[in-house]
């Protein structure tokens, strides 16, 4: 009898534990390629991104976009969407976080942005200039969504390029930590209990680029 009661209690509580919204994070997947840009003087000036969205999200974003030819979208036809993209991303700091020897760097608004449609995926190209060019022994650039709504993953081949850096600089790319089952559980609950704004939980899934210069 006693055990039956404890079981009843446990069952009742368990049936209430999964509450709230329908979907587990992440919701959008992005395959990332980045180019780190340097000036002739050897200072870093910015980052050029090419983000490939997952095919389902791409189809969703393209829904209802006017285009002349079925299955094809020109850069011109996609210009309004690209505009929306970069404007919306501002609030999220373009998911790009840079540190020069540990000191936080800031980016200005993106330039040279456009969308490209490579069936079945959309690719967003944009360049983020640094507010002021920066040099450092260790330059760290991370791409991640702190709220893990978007999952960023480096492209398999040549995910990061150095453009114009001194040949003595070396690049290392750190793949993000793979979510453990405990992380998976936490991710699944983020819709219900969002991370607070200051939380750096997403950072552990960051795609890290490190440039070491002498």
């Amino acid at each position: 009898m006693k055990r039956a009661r404890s079981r009843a209690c446990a069952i009742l509580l368990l049936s209430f534990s999964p509450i709230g919204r329908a979907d587990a994070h992440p919701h959008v997947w992005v395959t990332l390629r980045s180019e780190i840009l340097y000036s002739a003087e050897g200072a870093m000036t910015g980052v050029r991104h090419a983000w490939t969205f997952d095919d389902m999200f791409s189809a969703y974003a393209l829904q209802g976009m006017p285009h002349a030819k079925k299955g094809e979208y020109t850069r011109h036809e996609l210009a309004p969407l690209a505009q929306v993209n970069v404007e919306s991303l501002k609030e999220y700091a373009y998911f790009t976080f840079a540190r020069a020897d540990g000191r936080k760097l800031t980016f200005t608004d993106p330039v040279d942005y456009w969308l490209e449609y490579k069936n079945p995926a959309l690719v967003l190209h944009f360049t983020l200039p640094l507010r002021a060019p920066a040099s450092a022994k260790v330059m760290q650039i991370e791409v991640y969504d702190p709220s893990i709504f978007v999952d960023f993953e480096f492209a398999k081949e040549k995910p990061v390029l150095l453009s114009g850096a001194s040949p003595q600089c070396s690049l290392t790319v750190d793949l993000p930590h793979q979510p453990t089952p405990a992380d998976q559980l936490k991710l699944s609950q983020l819709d219900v209990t969002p991370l607070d704004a200051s939380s750096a939980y997403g950072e552990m899934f960051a795609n890290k680029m490190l440039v070491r210069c002498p």
Partner: protein
Amino acid sequence: MNALPKRCSAYHVALVGALAIIIVISAGAAAQAAPFGIAHPSGGSTFQSGPLGWIFAQQAAFYRSLSGMIRASKDDRTAVWGLLGISFLYGVFHAVGPGHGKAVISSYLVANEQTWRRGIVLSFVAAGIQAVVAVIIVAVAAVVLGATARAIGSTVHVVEIVSYGLVILIGARLLFVKGRSFIGAYRQRRRQPTSHAMSMSSRNATGLLHRHVAGVLHCGHCREDRPNHGFHCHDDHCHEDHASAWSHAHGPEPAELGGAGGWRRGLSAVIAVGLRPCSGAIIVLIFALAQDMFWTGIGATLVMGLGTAITVAAIATLAWTARQAASRIAGAQAGIGLLAMRAIEVGASALIVAFGALLLAGYMSSEQLWMFTG
């Protein structure tokens, strides 16, 4: 049952009471969690993280494979079977996570005496409505009107708000009815202090008096409830046969549960939760449409709904079983047991309101999906 030793009875009462309190507290905690961004439930639940974490990893993998399988179905019709299989599994696994009205339906089944069969049917109807709403939204907005993702997003948004609003209304109505019922049971109990004390004082007399008190309380309960309560209480419950009256104390005969009024109320609850389409289904449908595979997408969505229904029904069964068990325990306790049952019902109704409010407050988080599309 009625001749249980005194110490044991106190234990049961405490347990049932604690259950009710835990439910009410968890309702409060849940209401706080999202809007203020505090109280992560993830801490300390390590025993769940293994299997549940695995399930979430699986459902993410299934979701990501759906697009490839839709494309494969384009050239190879036999690939459709694989797609339907994965859609079904995705539905089953996906629904283990938050949402799909499981919490609301479960709370509803705890707050109301329902037959198990009806709980199952309601679960399937809720999942079915969710799938059909997704298909209708995409068919009308995307296929007929050629609407943009942004327009579809705002449509889903409005539907969500309506859905959550209805959940709050249904919860509030239940809370009112059950709250009255609880107060009624409490007052009845207050009016019988002497007979209850006597029943406790003598073990030999306990059985008889318990039966008597139970009968009296039950009659009172029926009278209190009659105008608003979902159930019918026939006067013949209050006849001399108190022992049999107790067996009806927590609700109606199965035949009465099957009545049209009960169905209507149950359906209004599942329609409220079912209105909100799964955003995953919307995206799968739009992807299928872009691949000229809309009918295949509809098939996948409906099969997904079937999978979801199975999970929702399983969880509804747990809730139903828990209520049955609680009501059996309460059955051993005249008066206080009934009061505890009413408290549980009040707690479950409060939970429905809390879920609705939580969802309504939390709908902002879905806005992010539209961040790349405006």
